[in-house]
């Protein structure tokens, strides 16, 4: 029925069944040898590959490095983007000054900077962190600026007519009002950060999940490559859940609708 809700159980069943279909199709394709087993290993082989990568190999180390790269560069991007975004969404002068610059950078695809970053920053952590930073920071600034502009003018004006100074309005109205959306913006951009991480590690790295996948490619270990994809997916999901949880914990006042 158009726009008619379905029950929660039905919704979950539908959601699970698409995965069941997917894995069954995969399994059947392997069993009936419709695919080259070298290129498409059966699902269970991906799991055993993951297990041996962790137990026998150094995969946990790679995962740890990847997570640190994402967190490190993302924190850097937040430290720059949150104050700038809030200032640009609050003061017309800040917006006029910075927005032409910020929007121009948004149109440049971050991977285009990889060659020059490698020349400037060598082959250590520098270029990877820089790529992740560039890929995220300008979008984050813009998102936060837009969310700041959406803080209702009546809230600001109420505060002014209660006697608040400009500075106090900024700190006690604009900042707390936009903060829940800042966390939402972070959640959205963290997913993008994972995308650039994989690019950075595949193109120019000997450590990390992406690098492990490129090594596996050399030895035709498709099961290990797929294990890498699986881990990246799971990590992305976990970080997303972490941010959802933080939103609920920090901004509980938004959730307690009783009337």
């Amino acid at each position, binding site marked *: 029925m158009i726009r008619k809700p379905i029950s929660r159980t039905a919704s979950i069943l539908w959601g699970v069944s698409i995965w069941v279909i997917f894995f069954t199709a995969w399994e059947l394709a392997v069993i009936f040898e419709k695919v080259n087993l070298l290129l498409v290993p059966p699902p269970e082989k991906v799991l055993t590959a993951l297990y041996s990568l962790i137990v026998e190999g150094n995969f946990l180390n790679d995962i740890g490095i990847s997570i640190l790269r994402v967190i490190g560069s993302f924190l850097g991007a937040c430290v720059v983007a949150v104050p700038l975004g809030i200032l640009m969404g609050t003061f017309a002068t800040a917006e006029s000054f910075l927005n032409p610059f910020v929007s121009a950078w948004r149109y440049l695809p971050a991977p285009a900077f990889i060659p020059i970053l490698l020349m400037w920053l060598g082959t250590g952590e520098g270029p990877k962190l820089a790529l992740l930073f560039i890929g995220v920071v300008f979008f984050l600034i813009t998102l936060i600026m837009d969310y700041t502009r959406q803080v*209702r003018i*009546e*809230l600001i*004006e*109420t*505060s*002014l*007519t*209660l*006697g*608040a*100074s400009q500075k*106090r309005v900024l700190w*006690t*109205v604009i900042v*707390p*009002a936009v*903060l829940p959306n800042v966390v939402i913006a972070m959640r959205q951009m963290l997913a993008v950060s994972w995308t650039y991480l994989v690019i950075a590690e595949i193109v120019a790295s000997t450590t990390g999940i992406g690098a492990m996948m490129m090594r596996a490619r050399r030895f035709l270990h498709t099961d290990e490559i797929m294990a890498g994809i699986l881990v990246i997916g799971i990590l992305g999901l976990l970080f997303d859940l972490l941010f959802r949880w933080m939103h609920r914990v920090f*901004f509980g*006042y*938004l*959730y*307690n*609708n*009783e*009337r």
Partner: protein
Amino acid sequence: MATNFNKNDSVKLVVENAGKTYTHNNGSTIDAIVDVSFSVQRNEYCVLLGPSGCGKSTVLRMVAGLETPTTGRILLDGKIIEGPDRHRGMVFQNYTSFDWLTVNKNVEYGMKCNGVAAREREQIAAHFLDIVQLTKFKDAYPSQLSGGMKQRVAIARTLANKPSVILMDEPFGALDAETRWNMQELMASIIESTDTTVVMVTHDIEEALFLGDRIVFFSGHPGTVMEDGPVEYKNRQRVMIKEEALDLPGYIEAERHIMALMRSQRQEIGG
């Protein structure tokens, strides 16, 4: 139950030949109001009434200091108004609760801005929460409150800040009918028990007649004062209960008169 409102016959607020021309982004201009003059006595409940779009909000915002008049001037206690400050507290039609603060902290907010000590803040907030009957909800967050309760928080927050004039822009316009008249009676009793001057915008005739000591009626576009005078049927008395107002002998005539004014303006706008 009725009392005389004219405890002190001194002029509080003067609007003198005020005009406001807005300039749009594309350079075109619009005269929202021209040559508006009226004055409000101390402790008076002044209602601005008129068809929609005639510039009532503009006048109120100029008094608040949120807009500057293009021509003329506005004086509070003899001083020209420059920018918003604590002496003219505003209550908007849309909810303005600070969602991240409890009801109690919302009410304390203005006092905190103005350096009132914590102990005193607490006492004053408790007093005004009692007046608006929200003591039970002092530790709740606004998202747990109904629309009428949120508006009561906004009123308590403004009152607790002891402004010289309270400005209200259709404060009950978003509420359902029953909540609205409850709020109107609450407002009547608040004004009676606190020494405040109120300027309130409304387009609800019944509300204007029940609450107002004086009604300033605006003509349509560009807005200007068409009629200005005390609400006669109450004989300069205040009424606390709505039915009492409706039962007074002059009520129907007063209502009919204002409806005629409204209609004349509406027809002019309709062409």
